[in-house]
């Protein structure tokens, strides 16, 4: 996960010979103009971690707790990644939480009750997500019901479907080794390092190739120092994280060893890379931004707006399915509350805290990961400090409200300074 605050895709420097200073002045003026991007999430993350580290130095800063953060926040983050697509169109999917519950229940039924192998169950869960998303998308795009109402109805109905699928209140355990491993096992330390090296080399190659390609054509490029800084920044962050995760976390090494990167982490990173690629580098992604920015303009440009609107709901529900699989894996079971209670609000909160606009047209998949980290840190830190669930909910609610205010205010500021 990269937490560099520098946006990769920001407008290039105005001057034809860009300097590092110019680049950062440019970035600062954009922030002042209301284009804050992921800055609030990154700052919030730093502040929260500092506060919790001071209050609970031994427990919050332990390697075990750090690994916990990832498995705790994984399901919400995955659902939030899908929600970003819906939010980009200025729509909302309130049913994503229970959609993940339905998909998890399908998974549990297929693997435990029917006894099929894990991959059949995973395919069935994701297929369920695709069906749910297609239905929601059709109702929104073709019939024209506001997404708020469609997905609110879905929220209720899917809650019922989960109840029906798990036979009225019992729970179905998930015992399949592969499925349980997703959220409960770790990569071997060497494999963790190998994948990290691969990720850094891949990122560096993409960045340097793009820089060279643009420079060769005489286009404005970011200064090479900024590119290098990004690569080094990513390497430092990934390297530190993997180093800490590879420390021994077991309380008693003689009984069992516990170290390595949790398996959900590479899953999230791969999905982050794939969806970021789709949004930033394909015309489909470009069209999502266009429909979110100005639907009429998109229609006149020959973009099939209905198809785009349906497809984002499909992506959202499919990601919810993956989130549901991770949740089922973490709990080792599926019960009527899987994907329920605060999961949806945490997911919407994660996307918005990360910098995705509720007004559409602005947001990145990375936002969901950063926001998911903020939500996970709050939940985790407050738990360590012994606060009750009530206090946690209130704090998370306040943080969500803060994030939405930042979104609304930065929008107003941007309108005033003409940068949006």
């Amino acid at each position, binding site marked *: 996960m990269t937490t560099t605050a520098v946006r990769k895709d*920001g*407008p*290039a*420097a*105005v001057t034809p010979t860009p300097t590092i200073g110019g680049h950062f002045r440019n970035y600062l003026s954009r922030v002042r103009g209301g284009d804050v991007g992921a800055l609030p999430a990154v700052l919030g993350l730093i502040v929260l971690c500092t506060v919790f580290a001071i209050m609970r130095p031994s427990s919050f800063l332990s390697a075990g707790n750090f690994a916990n953060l990832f498995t705790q926040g994984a399901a919400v983050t995955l659902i939030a990644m899908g929600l970003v697509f819906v939010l980009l169109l200025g729509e909302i999917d309130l049913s994503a939480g229970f959609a993940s519950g339905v998909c998890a229940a399908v998974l549990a039924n297929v693997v435990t009750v029917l006894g099929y192998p894990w991959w059949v169950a995973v395919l069935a869960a994701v297929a369920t997500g695709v069906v749910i998303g297609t239905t929601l998308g059709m109702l929104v795009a073709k019939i024209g019901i506001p997404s708020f109402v469609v997905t609110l109805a879905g929220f209720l109905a899917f809650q019922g479907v989960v109840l029906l699928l798990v036979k009225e209140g019992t729970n179905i355990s998930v015992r399949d080794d592969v499925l349980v491993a997703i959220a409960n096992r770790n990569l071997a330390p060497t494999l963790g390092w190998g994948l990290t090296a691969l990720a850094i080399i891949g990122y560096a190659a993409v960045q340097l190739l793009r820089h060279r*390609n*643009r420079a060769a*054509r005489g*286009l*404005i490029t970011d200064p090479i120092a900024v590119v290098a800084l990004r690569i080094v920044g990513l390497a430092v962050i990934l390297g530190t994280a993997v180093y800490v995760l590879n420390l021994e976390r077991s309380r008693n090494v003689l009984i069992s060893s516990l170290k390595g990167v949790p398996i959900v982490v590479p899953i999230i990173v791969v999905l982050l890379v794939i969806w970021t690629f789709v949004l930033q*580098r*394909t*015309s489909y992604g*470009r*069209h999502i*931004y*266009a429909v*979110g*920015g*100005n639907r*009429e*303009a*998109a229609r*006149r*440009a*020959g*973009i099939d707006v209905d198809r785009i609107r349906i497809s984002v709901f499909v992506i959202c529900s499919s990601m919810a399915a993956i989130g549901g699989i991770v949740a089922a894996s973490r709990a080792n079971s599926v019960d009527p509350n899987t994907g329920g209670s605060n999961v949806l609000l945490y997911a919407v909160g994660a996307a918005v805290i990360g910098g995705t606009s509720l007004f559409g*047209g*602005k947001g990145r998949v990375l936002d969901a990961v950063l926001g998911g980290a903020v939500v996970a840190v709050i939940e985790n830190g407050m738990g360590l400090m012994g606060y009750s669930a009530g206090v946690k909910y209130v704090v998370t609610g306040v943080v969500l409200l803060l994030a939405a205010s930042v979104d609304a205010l930065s929008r107003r500021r*941007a309108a005033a300074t*003409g*940068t*949006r």
Partner: protein
Amino acid sequence: MSATPLLELRGIDKSFGPVQVLRDVALTVHPGEVTALVGDNGAGKSTLVKCISGIHPTDAGEFLFNGEPVHIGSPRDAAALGIEVVYQDLALCDNLDIVQNMFLGREKRNGIVLDEPTMEQLAAETLAGLSIRTVTSLRQHVSSLSGGQRQTVAIAKAVLWNSKLVILDEPTAALGVAQTAQVLELVRRLADNGLAVVLISHNMNDVFAVSDRIAALYLGQMVAQVKTTDITHAQVVELITAGRSGGLGLATDPGSNGDGPQAADSISGGVR
């Protein structure tokens, strides 16, 4: 006057339910010329443009493009012929940058990956070809541009596709004096580059400043199509408001009452 008109419309009829909006409309547009399309509110200018651009199907009539009969059934058909429309509300996405907007819906790709460098280069060349120097960075979001710059981008977007006919719907309506001058200059340059331009405007100063020909619509009928040099300001206003001016326009009063006597008494223009 060029030999073959680029676009020729004959006998276009268009109704929305019981309301007949266009009645036997004829229009010729020549390459290298700016044809101003004038008319009062509700005269049918926007409907005519939407028929040309394929948004509305016509009820009757023929389209000739370069002398060949063509059928325009959708915006894609129009785009394939090289007809581009710049709408009044610009149809730009505020959250995308200039290059992204110019290529919206027709992105250049390498396999499935967007080919950003090529798009940026082509956009830069197009803007340079139109002598547009008012934008500092091609990668700035459209939201940060002034009204005139947005209009410029919208026009450049239309020109990018080797278009042959560019239709501008009130391009100067929301602009200040200096920006209006810039945009009109650009409109003139388009025609001088050999494109056919149709300019819809309410502003007579704009019309007389850049147009070569004036086509006047009155209550869904094409009442006159004349060279700009052959007509006066006052006559155009009369054509717009009354449907005729001296020897120009409707021969007899088409049943619309009130305006008739005034038009009949007016000074004779005696052209055509």
